[in-house]
């Protein structure tokens, strides 16, 4: 009995003494209970570790979102303000148009203007790398569509297999961010493998599950495990990779990171 719950019943011949039976069974029973207790503890620790990993990934994704927003609403706005200020000073309509040092000043201001413009592009690029803003604003389907719109080397086509397009969903932001990162990274990889086309298929699976199917016509080469696959695993997702003939061309690589929760 353990906390009043029967754990096992032992049937025996009454001829044998109960004491003797208990003596002979004790080591085996103790061992199996110890085993069960250890297994339960290990399972509990595993579940706790998984939950911690999930929380860590979710927290890191939410910090990325915040960082991205701070860059757009803080640094970028100030740079825009600075660009306008430089333009105003640079304007030939200024009071000191007759000033002999004007040409030199104009040259310096042109340099400053070019630098601030580069900084604006850079901030936008970095912010996007931290967290694509359109993912929060438009949801996964539309954000992937924008990624397809802007892909220049590889023609990307996005399709949904059943179910409505995914709207922005606060509950699934970490999942969507990782799915987006997986596609972005695979696109880059496909380009390196000489692909000219990439087909992305999005399939919703259950309430929060998601399966992505990525097919390209590049050279077949095994993809490496990396940060993205670690993030998928941490969210109890699955990453499965199929190498072999695909739908696009003979020898195409099929790559299916399933983010099934």
């Amino acid at each position: 009995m353990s906390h009043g719950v029967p754990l096992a019943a032992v049937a025996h011949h009454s001829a044998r003494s109960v004491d003797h039976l208990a003596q002979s069974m004790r080591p085996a029973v103790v061992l199996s209970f110890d085993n069960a207790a250890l297994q339960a503890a290990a399972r509990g620790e595993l579940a706790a570790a998984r939950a911690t990993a999930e929380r860590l990934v979710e927290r890191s994704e939410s910090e990325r979102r915040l960082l991205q927003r701070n860059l757009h609403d803080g640094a970028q706005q100030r740079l825009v303000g600075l660009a306008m200020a430089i333009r105003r000073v640079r304007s030939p309509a200024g009071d000191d148009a007759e000033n002999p040092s004007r040409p030199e000043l104009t040259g310096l201001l042109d340099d400053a203007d070019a630098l601030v413009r580069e900084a604006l592009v850079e901030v936008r690029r970095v912010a996007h790398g931290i967290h694509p803003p359109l993912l929060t604003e438009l949801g996964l389907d539309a954000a992937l569509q924008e990624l397809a719109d802007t892909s220049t080397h590889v023609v990307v086509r996005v399709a949904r297999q059943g179910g409505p397009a995914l709207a922005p969903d606060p509950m699934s932001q970490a999942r969507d961010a990782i799915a987006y990162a997986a596609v972005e990274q695979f696109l880059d990889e496909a380009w390196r493998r000489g692909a000219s086309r990439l087909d992305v298929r999005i399939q919703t699976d259950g309430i929060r599950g998601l399966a992505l199917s990525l097919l390209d016509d590049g050279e077949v080469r095994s993809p490496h495990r990396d940060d993205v696959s670690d993030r998928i695993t941490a969210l109890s997702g699955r990453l499965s990779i199929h190498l072999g003939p695909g739908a696009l061309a003979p020898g195409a690589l099929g790559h299916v990171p399933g983010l099934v929760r």
Partner: protein
Amino acid sequence: MRIVIADDTVIVREGLRSLLAAEGIQTVGEASDPAGLLRLVALERPDAAIVDIRMPPTHTDEGIAAAEQIRGQYPATAVLVLSQYVAATYAQRLLDDGTEGVGYLLKDRVGEASVLVDALHRVVAGECVVDPELVHRLMSGAAAAGPLAALSAREREVLALMAQGHSNEAIASSLAIGAKTVETHVAHIFRKLSIDEAPAVNRRVAAVVALLRTGSRMDSL
């Protein structure tokens, strides 16, 4: 020209006001959120409103919704939406409602007074303005291998300018060709891209942007 500015950053509002003042454009009011913007437009009935896409409360696409409201209620006010990053989804939403007197520009353009002033004049004249960077990206993306493959180099140039909202006259002068030649190119483009009826001058921008996007969209399976 009288305009109002809606942006939740003081630096940007002040910068815009003084930059435009130097170009002879008068800012008659400033707002930091959509509600304030609509009150200003109702009160001042400006020629145009410059609207940042990100405003409180969610800092996402408030500017697009505000633009739709202004155009619905005060059609005499043109709207120029500024966006931190150009997204075809936003441009399409803005143009789906009609393309007269509306513009979508990358926010970085505010540093280039001439681009901004030109865009303001065009939207106030009832034209449509789409940021060249967005058009460039759409034309070099999936559409380049799809629908655009049938076009000649010259036809692509004409299409890019058309998608940015330029009139036939403006296209003729920027490519240094005759107006008749532009018309011929436009007719060829629409035929090659199977756009059934040549849409009205302003609607064609929305048609072109929608078409460019279809290159990357597969039908639902």
